[in-house]
């Protein structure tokens, strides 16, 4: 196949251009990988999409039921609530994690003595296991946990809450843990963006009479748009499909107040054995991620282009 061609090509007069050989060989080599990825990812996704239109317990044959699963998602308060929770959680998470990551990046881009250590410290949360850290946080946020103890010791009794047991604050508590976990990542993304901005631009603006805030708003921020595009898109996808932290902290409770599409998919599929309904929820989640990410990328690219 390829080896004889190479030998022939080395003989004068045999018309197998080296360029064709170079491009053809890697393609052949990639076929097993491409096939596996195709079967594992796309065929499974499409098959999952088909199960969304069936009722199936995982044992008997699936029965086609049309759009019934989707109608149930949007009419059942539990699933619709999970959809709303997912969007709210993702929105607050994206806003929080990007603002905090950006603030950390700006701070740690300055000439600080402990810069390297602080960067490593803030990034350390990213490499920690989300399940393990969530269990630590569930201890910290418990009704009699250290956070409430500290608040009490500071005389802030009004701020003491049952952080993970009170439906009014549970979702935001989960959000807080997620922001803590991922702000190191967004910090690194924004930091890399900040480091691509030539120092002279800020110096020129400084000499031109710009205050620190104006320099950040008018020079750094617009030039950070490429980094922001990556960071916002990535954190949106993370926020929409979060499972580990929610499941470890609240399991979707109390009273479904922290139930998200990802936890619903898990419960409906593997706890209640409703594989068809779970597939429909997964389809809605995938569509949601695709839709929001696409809109976001388009908007960010538009503003990015305006700034370039």
């Amino acid at each position: 196949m390829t080896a004889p061609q190479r030998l022939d090509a080395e003989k004068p007069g045999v018309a197998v251009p080296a360029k064709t050989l170079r491009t053809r060989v890697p393609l052949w080599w990639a076929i097993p990988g491409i096939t596996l990825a195709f079967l594992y990812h796309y065929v499974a996704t499409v098959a999952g999409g088909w199960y969304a239109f069936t009722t199936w317990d995982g044992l008997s044959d699936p029965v086609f039921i049309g759009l019934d699963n989707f109608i149930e998602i949007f009419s059942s308060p539990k699933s619709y609530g999970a959809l709303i929770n997912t969007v709210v959680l993702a929105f607050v998470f994206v806003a929080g994690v990007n603002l905090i990551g950006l603030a950390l990046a700006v701070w740690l881009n300055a000439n600080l003595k402990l810069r390297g250590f602080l960067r490593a410290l803030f990034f350390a949360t990213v490499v920690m296991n989300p399940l393990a850290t969530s269990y630590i946080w569930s201890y910290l946020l418990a009704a009699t946990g250290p956070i409430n103890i500290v608040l009490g010791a500071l005389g802030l009794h009004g701020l003491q809450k049952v952080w993970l047991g009170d439906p009014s604050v549970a979702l935001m508590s989960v959000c807080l843990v997620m922001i803590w976990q991922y702000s190191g990542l967004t910090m690194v993304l924004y930091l890399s963006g900040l480091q691509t901005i030539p120092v002279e631009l800020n110096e020129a603006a400084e000499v031109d009479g710009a205050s620190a805030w104006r320099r950040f708003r008018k020079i750094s921020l617009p030039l950070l748009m490429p980094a922001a595009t990556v960071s916002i898109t990535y954190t949106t996808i993370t926020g929409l499909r979060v499972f580990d932290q929610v499941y470890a902290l609240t399991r979707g409770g109390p009273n479904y107040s922290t139930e998200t599409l990802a936890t619903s998919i898990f419960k409906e599929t593997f706890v209640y054995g409703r594989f068809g309904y779970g597939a429909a929820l997964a389809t809605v989640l995938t569509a949601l991620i695709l839709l929001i990410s696409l809109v976001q990328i388009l908007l960010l690219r538009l503003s990015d282009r305006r700034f370039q």
Partner: protein
Amino acid sequence: MVQINFKDVAKRYADGTDAVRSLNIDVRDGEFLVMVGPSGCGKTTALRMVAGLESITGGELVAGNRVINNLAPRDRNFAMVFQNYALYPHMTIFENIAFPLECEGVAKAEIKKRVEHVVGMLDLEPHLYRKPKSLSGGQRQRVAMGRAVIRRPHAFLMDEPLSNLDAKLRVQMRSEITQLQHDLGTTTLYVTHDQVEAMTMGDRIAVMNKGVLQQVGTPLEIYERPLNMFVAAFVGSPSINLLSARLERTGDGVICVVGEQRFGIGATPELEAWIDRGIVFGVRPEDVSLRSDAAGKGATLKAEFVLSEMVPPEQLVHLDLGADVVVAATEEFDGDGTPRNLQNGKIIARIPSEYAISPGTGEWAIRKGHFFDPANGALIASVRFDLN
């Protein structure tokens, strides 16, 4: 417009490196002063200290009778043009030029009026709403100038603004910047490593080396009467020929001995103390001419013709004075500012290109020479030789 005074200004970094040592320069109101020197001589650091981008670790920097050592850059009202222009890539040319006025809070109508005036002056109207990346190097340079000019600053600070341009454009922009500065009469501090730029643009030139100011003077003063070997060698292209020499008394006069060759230099009081001592004799290439071209006696050196480089209307003639003559390598100076010695006897003469040089050894006349102290490089005397 403002006068800027460096009073023993120094910059020492945390690691102990002295970038600028005890700098004393008075930049006059409305003057175009060029700071020139090789890489790492401290000229850019000095400029950045004036801009407020670099802290001052010693001395006082005074602008208009006010010490500005600790004043924030935005409060100094200086405009700076950077080596790479530092144009804001996400802003249009209009927005770039208007930025300093926006920072001052000038009304939009006034900004528009002033930007239009500046772009008219700099011939940038067709590009007003384009981004910097779509402009050529020369146009970007003009935008940077526009951004500096628009706020009517006390002074312009320019950090090698022409170094990114090609040779032809550099010549054009050189005259444009000089003309603009003359028209506006704004005090200008200009940093360059290019001696031609320094000589052609500056009202005065400050030559720096290793953080130390070597000499301040008009271009002609610097060229005609360099205060030390470094200045003599840095200014002028090709560089000055520096030869190890010895002075001897003969009868009623003084003679200079270069290798085995001798020539009279007349009575010069400054050189009396150097008789029977080693000295460095410097002669610029254009002060070496064909003997037949310089009638009469005067200073003469015998040299063998090596080769000629034609650069019409001139030619650079490479001559060999003999292997026993020690010639200083002017491109490489030791830490104390004295040149490293080479025992090769090679010198360069610059003469009109129409002269044909015959091969072999000939006599070459010296019109003018500078004598330097070999220990510290200081100028002892500049002597014009009598050619008649």
